[in-house]
């Protein structure tokens, strides 16, 4: 972990350039450019709201909006992590530089997008007359989610070098994960339906804790189980530690496999 951070600090200029490159390239050839980052979740929210209405599932719109925006950060990172390493085959094979900068830069560029969408989300919440609380905690949650995203990005980007099946597995896992996380339903839904043991299990999914925490600060939702939310956060950092270990072991073989 120490070595990892030290390495990143030494390569901060490279990271900065790679983040700029990623953001620039993502929107380079699309007409709407950055607008897509916002338009995408808005369109998704529209679709979900419509179908949830048809299915008569009761969820307040601010809950849904915050859930989808928080999820989209993870979703983008997972999708991009498949190609964070193998999409830079030429760099890996022909130049020597600190390999973790690739997935880190990818997560950071998505973080930039996420922070911008959080600002838009804030505007919407003011418009919807929802009042936040303890806003100073928001950066802590963003940091935890970034740790989770980075941990998974390190694992997935390294795995995809060795096994190209990763892409197909990820698609299924992502879908299941989406429905297991209280995004299109409120967390109270979980507490109403299942036994206390399963409630705890629900928070083993770190996204459950994160979404709950975001909703707590952004729209003053009551936290039903603060200790479970804390556990979710701890898991995020655990995933990062595991991700770093896996990536450091795997990176030695990248140039051989690509």
């Amino acid at each position, binding site marked *: 972990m120490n070595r990892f951070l030290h390495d990143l600090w030494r*390569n901060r200029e490279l990271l900065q*350039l790679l983040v700029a*490159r990623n953001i620039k390239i993502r929107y*380079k050839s699309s007409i709407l450019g950055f607008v897509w980052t916002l338009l995408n979740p808005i369109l998704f929210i529209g679709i979900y709201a419509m179908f949830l209405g048809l299915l008569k599932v009761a969820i307040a719109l601010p809950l849904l909006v915050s859930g989808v925006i928080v999820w989209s950060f993870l979703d983008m990172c997972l999708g991009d992590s498949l190609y964070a390493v193998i999409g830079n085959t030429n*760099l890996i094979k022909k*130049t020597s*530089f600190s390999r973790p900068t690739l997935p880190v830069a990818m997560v950071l560029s998505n973080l930039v997008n996420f922070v911008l969408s959080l600002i838009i989300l804030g505007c919407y919440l003011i418009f919807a007359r929802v009042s936040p609380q303890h806003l100073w905690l928001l950066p802590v949650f963003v940091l935890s989610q970034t740790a989770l995203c980075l941990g998974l990005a390190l694992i997935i980007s390294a795995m995809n070098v060795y096994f190209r099946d990763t892409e197909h597995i990820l698609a299924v896992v992502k879908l299941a994960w989406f429905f297991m996380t209280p995004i299109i339903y409120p967390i109270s839904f979980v507490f109403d339906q299942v036994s206390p043991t399963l409630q705890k299990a629900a928070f083993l999914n770190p996204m459950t804790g994160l979404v709950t925490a975001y909703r707590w600060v952004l729209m003053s939702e009551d936290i039903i189980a603060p200790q479970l939310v804390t556990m979710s956060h701890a898991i995020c950092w655990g995933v990062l530690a595991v991700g770093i270990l896996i990536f450091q072991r795997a990176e030695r073989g990248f*140039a*051989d496999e690509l």
Partner: protein
Amino acid sequence: MKHAIEVDNVSKCFRLSGGTRTLKSAALDLLRSRDHREAFWALKNASFNVKKGETVGIIGANGAGKSTLLALIASTMYPTSGTIRTEGSISSLLELGAGFHPDLSGRENVFLAGAIMGIPRTRMEERFDAIVDFAELHEYIDEPVKHYSSGMYVRLGFAVAVEVDPEILLIDEVLAVGDAVFEMKCLGRMADFRRRGKSMLIISHDLQTVQEVSDRIMLLEHGEIQQVGNPSNVVAQYQALSELRHRDGLRKEWGSREMEMTRIETHDAAGEPSQSFACGDEVEVRIHYHASARIVSPVFGFAISDDNGRVIAGSNCQAERITMPDLDGDGYVVLRIPSLSIAKGKYLLSFSVHSSDHSVNYHRLDNCFPIEVAASEEFAGVYLKTEWSIQAIND
């Protein structure tokens, strides 16, 4: 450390798999608790040093392990065993413009490439003008590199790599890509580099150039260092070796084998075994045969090819109106060439024995026997007796 690069007993093994590994095969490997992909040793027990200020050229056939060795020193790959130590900053030209992104401008790519090499931004800013000068890209530097011609692309790649002024420069066959002017410029820059006491490791197939720029040359073959030494000696040895390989490649033996040619001897006029003759010498060839059953009047033939395998002369006993008796068991046939009238050079002899109606080839030895014609008058190919005369017309 007075060496810029120390390579100690380094080996590199690749695992070959038909295509990309799938989860299924990986899981199977795990169950068998071993990696079952075939091992390929790209480099075996390589040890050598490069002194500070020294330029070492690396030559060898394709697949000899040259690029692997450079990739290991550039630490884009890790050795399977052994250690590599380097002193000073390294700039590697394993591929020109390797870090460039097509959608970014030349300027952005220069800074990105610098950051990838670990050069601080402030230093890149100092060097920027020199880079653009060397690459001659002034008016295009803010265009995306995808619009560059391949020449502009490699010029920028080379400019970045040399302008960052490393202690060690690794170059993999990059001089072949530019035009002649660019190549001159690169060679000039490399010479300048050398004068300033920097170390270089250069892979090249251009033996002439590599011999000129190197202090020593390393010959790699099948992943092993054959020799490191004086440039002209090593290049000469490599050329001899390539010639041998080439001849082996032309060699072919086939046939139904009812009758076999077991041994071929070539003798000079004095009856001594020889492979080297002068033009016009008498040559006697003994073709030893073995027939496992009785063969009805076989036909023996021969051909002479140049060292590219093109037949320049050939005949058989049938063409000379000689009918062999039926043959059985062992013996030898004598072919006498009273005058070997071919130009100075290296040749390959082929022999055949087939049925009299040419329907069955019993045994063929194509391009199996090298001979040399060491001296001849100035003429080409096979000597034709010619007559010349002058008929002057005066008004």
